[in-house]
């Protein structure tokens, strides 16, 4: 089985390195960061922290080098989905492509370029500490399911989930993956931008009663938008927020969006709060708080 990871940042690297430990899987990584690609080809792709893994991965910045693949795993930042899949789609002419990205709307973008799409949500997290080396911060589960509009065959979803699980990334194949995806999107949209706008870590956001209530307001609006689509959340995002606020979990964690704002990088707000607000508009569900937050974060980006 041949798998190409498209966008080999922190999360993409977790999948690539773990899958590369399997004898029956050939792993490719497509990424535009030249130093990272060169280091992977020279020394392998190394994970440290929650797990010590070195995977033999063939990395490239030239999409033409990718062979025909059974699976693609797209792990770029959400705003780079379109460019990345447009460049690599030829490699998946007979394969299936899964997204493990943040936000909603990535499947729609993939479906404009490839035939068989897999909806995915993943919780593991990490960060690139040096070219070819990724710090694995948090282990966690991944859920995959066929994307309704352009579904991959369920057996194929199961085949990819099985490979990920055997490789050390516990993954479940389900028929409807929207519940886990919306739970994570709502969690991210209710917490990341509050950190980004105030400069507070996740734990400190949750300590302030007024701010914590604002997070709940965002959760409620997001849940209403999910319900209007008949999506049943697999768990309460509020529990996830409180769990993550524990000292031993992510109290001191700066949300990725706060990291982006501090580094003056474009954020994923359009795919988080903007994604929820967009669905809300189409479904006639009001999301004034998500719209407010999105406008403010876009304003922050415009101030650079």
């Amino acid at each position, binding site marked *: 089985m041949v798998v190409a990871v498209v966008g080999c940042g922190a999360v993409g690297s977790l999948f690539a390195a773990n899958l590369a430990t399997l004898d029956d899987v050939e792993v490719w990584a497509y990424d535009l960061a030249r130093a990272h690609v060169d280091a992977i080809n020279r020394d392998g792709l190394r994970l440290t922290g929650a797990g010590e893994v070195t995977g033999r991965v063939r990395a490239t910045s030239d999409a033409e080098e990718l062979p025909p693949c059974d699976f693609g795993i797209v792990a770029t930042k959400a705003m780079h989905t379109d460019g990345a899949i447009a460049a690599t789609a030829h490699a998946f002419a007979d394969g299936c492509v899964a997204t493990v990205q943040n936000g909603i709307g990535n499947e729609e973008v993939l479906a404009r370029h490839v035939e068989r799409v897999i909806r995915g949500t993943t919780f593991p997290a990490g960060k690139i500490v040096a070219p070819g080396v990724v710090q694995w911060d948090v282990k966690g589960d991944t859920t995959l399911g066929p994307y309704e509009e352009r579904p991959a065959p369920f057996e194929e979803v199961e085949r990819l989930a099985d490979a990920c699980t055997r490789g050390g990334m516990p993954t479940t194949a389900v028929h409807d993956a929207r519940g886990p995806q919306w739970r994570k999107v709502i969690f991210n949209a209710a917490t990341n931008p509050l950190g980004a706008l105030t400069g507070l870590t996740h734990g400190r956001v949750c300590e302030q009663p007024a701010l914590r209530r604002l997070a709940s307001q965002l959760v409620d609006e997001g849940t209403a938008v999910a319900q209007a689509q008949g999506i049943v959340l697999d768990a309460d995002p509020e529990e996830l927020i409180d769990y993550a606020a524990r000292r031993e979990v992510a109290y001191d964690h700066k949300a990725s969006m706060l990291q982006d704002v501090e580094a003056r990088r474009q954020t994923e707000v359009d795919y988080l709060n903007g994604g929820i607000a967009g669905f809300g508009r189409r479904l006639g569900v009001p999301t004034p708080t998500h719209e407010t937050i999105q406008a403010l974060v876009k*304003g922050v980006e415009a101030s650079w």
Partner: protein
Amino acid sequence: MARVCVAGAGVIGSLFAAHLARVAEVSALTRREEHAAALREHGLSVSGRAGFTARLDASVRPEELPAPELVIVACKTTDLDAVGSLLAGHWPEATVMTVQNGIGADEVIGRHGDWRALAAVTFMSGTRHDDTHVQYVLDTATWIGPARGTTVDDAEHVAELLRSAGLAAEAFPDLRPAQWSKLIFNATVNTVSALTGLPHDRHFAELERPSDLGHLVRGLMDEGKAVAAAAGVELGEDPWEMNVLATQRGSAHYPSMLEDVEAHRRTEIDWITGALVREARRVGVPVPLHETMERLVKAKEDSWS
């Protein structure tokens, strides 16, 4: 010659004090001893729209200053109580004029003494370079109205004094329409600017895409207008039109709350958005957007404390 004391010599206080010193006997009541000393020694220089240096008296203690007929309280809203208690027991014959953002400044001062009171809103702006140098940027008007124990004639009298000093000023029988227009404008522009880091520029009037900032700005202003209507106040200028006009002029004004946030100072959120939210509760109008902004700005203050 009229005797005027300006309490609080920040940007606005300095602009009042320097201009008035050309036509009146002016003193400045400052918070810091060295500020008073610098003013006594060097005077107060104005650059920008005017260029001159004014001589004036200054102290941190009211008892060291000549009793004025008019006190202009120009400190930040966060210092109102401190200035009020400093003035307590002094100058019972004086009229006190507050010029702070928001509403209710005259009431805070009134808790410290029963001076006759005028309320004002000022639209002029400047940049403070140091203790004795202020740059005059926007020469827009100060609007004055009666507050307690005063009439529109008293307001007109002070407006006339300001005009003779080279400042734009106008008296109104009821200041609330102007105060409310400015409060709504300020509560919106200051908080959006403080949270985004954007000066008040064209982004604030953009309405093209659903995520454009203009929608939020208009939503905040609509909430404010609903509160004013429920409070029985007919607005002066429309805040949204003020916003569009200001951003079309091409200038990118730095609202004071953005300056506060960048300097990691406490902001005037309790006095601006807080005043609007309190008034909204009183009249029973929901203002969820302003509440969101208030929470975020307060949380941002917490991030550096």
